[in-house]
């Protein structure tokens, strides 16, 4: 079986700066994979390249959608518009929370249903049977997602009024509404307390196990990364410096060097 996401020789240059340098990565169906690295290593840039916010300078981003309709067909998605990438089944969250601030929690998730619905201007004006059915479908689907994530008590609250941890989870809920096969989480645990992080840990596992959505996450909380992910990629200065199982990464000298710096002998 082909990997659902396969990135080959991905390179992203900003002028003279190589933010991502020949990066390879793959994710199999049903995996939880983590992408770690020191600050400024190029992790978020990598997400932006995959989701179409940046157009990669070089390399390939290929997806193989695991659903029955597209089974086995591989598509190259780099350079596509972000909205098309989302429609193909890659949903993401943002490191700095980007919720729709003037909308309620439910509406935030309803926006996520945009790619799976199709009412147009005329349909909205006439508000016929199919439109009403679709509106009902959107609202109910969004509500059921909120219930799964455990945010149903905030339904009509404004998204910005939620506690921080809940906002992060709402971002995940919103992404799930787009019916993705791969969820890209950009530092989902940033700013959370240990209790919230534990809850997030359980939530991510639940999403993978119950919804069958594979997960690629960027995270700095090593405890979470080590307990959650099945494979880990480590990047530094845009280059891959390590990959493997959590235990291997923990003991990898190159990774330790990147994080903690090199041991220097001081000759007194």
């Amino acid at each position, binding site marked *: 079986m082909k990997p659902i996401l396969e990135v080959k020789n991905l390179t992203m240059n900003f002028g003279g700066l190589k933010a991502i340098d020949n990066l390879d990565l793959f994710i199999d169906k049903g995996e939880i994979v983590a992408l770690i690295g020191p600050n400024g290593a190029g992790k978020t840039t990598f997400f932006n390249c995959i*989701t179409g*916010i940046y157009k990669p300078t070089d390399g390939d981003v290929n997806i193989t959608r695991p659903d029955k309709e597209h089974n086995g067909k591989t598509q190259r998605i780099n350079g596509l*518009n*972000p*909205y098309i990438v*989302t*429609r193909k089944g890659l*949903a*993401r969250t*943002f490191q700095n929370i*980007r*919720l*729709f*601030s*003037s*909308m*309620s929690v*439910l*509406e935030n998730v*309803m*926006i*996520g249903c*945009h*790619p799976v*619905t199709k*009412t*147009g*201007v005329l*349909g*909205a*004006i006439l*508000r016929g049977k199919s*439109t009403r059915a*679709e*509106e009902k479908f*959107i*609202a*109910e689907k969004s*509500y059921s997602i909120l219930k799964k994530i455990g945010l*149903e008590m905030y*339904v*009509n609250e404004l998204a910005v009024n939620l506690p921080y941890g809940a906002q992060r989870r709402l971002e995940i809920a*919103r*992404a799930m*509404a*787009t019916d993705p096969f791969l969820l890209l989480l950009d530092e989902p645990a940033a700013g959370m307390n240990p209790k919230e992080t534990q809850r997030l840990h359980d939530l991510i596992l639940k999403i993978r196990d119950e919804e069958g959505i594979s997960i690629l996450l960027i995270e700095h909380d090593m405890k979470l990364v080590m307990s959650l992910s099945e494979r880990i990629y480590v990047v530094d200065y845009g280059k891959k410096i390590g990959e493997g199982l959590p235990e291997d990464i923990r003991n990898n000298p190159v990774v330790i060097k990147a994080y903690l710096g090199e041991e220097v002998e001081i000759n007194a």
Partner: protein
Amino acid sequence: MIVMDEIKKSCVATLWFIFLTFPIAVIKIDSINNTVKWRWLNMVYIGVGSFFLSMLWRYMIKKKEMGGQKEKKKKEAGFFYKISQNRKIFIPLCVLLGVFTILFPHIFSMYQTTIMISALIYVMLGLGLNIVVGLAGLLDLGYVAFFALGAYLYALLNMHYGVSFWVALPLGGMLAALFGLVLGYPVLKLRGDYLAIVTLGFGEIIRIISQNWDAVTFGPSGIANIPPPPFFGVKLSLQATSTYIFYIIVVLVIFTIFIINRLKDSRIGRAWVALKDDEIACQSMGIDKGKTKLTAFALGATWAGMAGVVFAAKTTFINPASFTIWESIIILCIVVLGGMGSIAGVISGALLLILLPEYLRAFAQYRMLAFASVLILMMIFRPNGMIENVRKIYKFKQ
């Protein structure tokens, strides 16, 4: 102690105002007799006036801050929403409003009816711009261009081909929508200030073309003798015509409200608001940014085009002077003052901004002063507009 402090602050403000207004309000030079007249009484008026105003000002600010602490804001925002949800109050209210509207031209003079027509034209313009600015968050400073397009379309088609009002009305809307797309396409990547500048330019381009293309638009002298809407071939008196146009514009406004209300709570409307809130997140939710922006531009422009046709039929004369940047700004003020995105807000904003100056003709010189003060006061005390927009509330069985 606090009271003393307040009085002290007000005294400082008063002294400052006296100092500022001293040269213009107190000193008067009589150039014939070469003498200086000292109008000390004016100084007293200004002193007392500014003292009380500054006290009032601080009191209001205090009250607002207290209100914020008690979350009073939340209740206020829900007031109109509650009325519109409570059918027992809302339906009789609508009926009352409807009866009043039907009787309006028969109770009041023709002058009043004419003023009301122009106010309702602005309601329509405000509602149209509300789609672009209030919902989709695209600052459009050239909105009047679409209004001009509609007006010129009717005037010219009627003059050359004898096209009737009823044919021109949808055509005006369509032409404006087309130009909305034409304007929207090149500015897809722009946002905020940059977009405002380009749309401002677009508004001016249309006005300058209409002013200088003598062969087609008859330049600054404009087009006269535009016929009012036909009424089953019957020639109506001047009074009856204005009544007739009044009813037409009322129906059009209701039509506009109906459609915008439906769009607002639809998939498209949500996409607009999402686009306004966060463009990048919006795209990451699978929303086609370009298409969404273009629909907002086109749908917003449609109403301006139709309003333009009605305007031409109402005034029977149009020239470029009716379509200056100033009109765009008034329409934008209507949307901002009334409440971005709120239909009830935009309607009351339009009525206030258009009717008030008409009824205060006596104070025409101070119009700008009043206008500016209202806007400044509103920005401080009601930053979200007179009637805040309330998003739909969904209910679910637990």
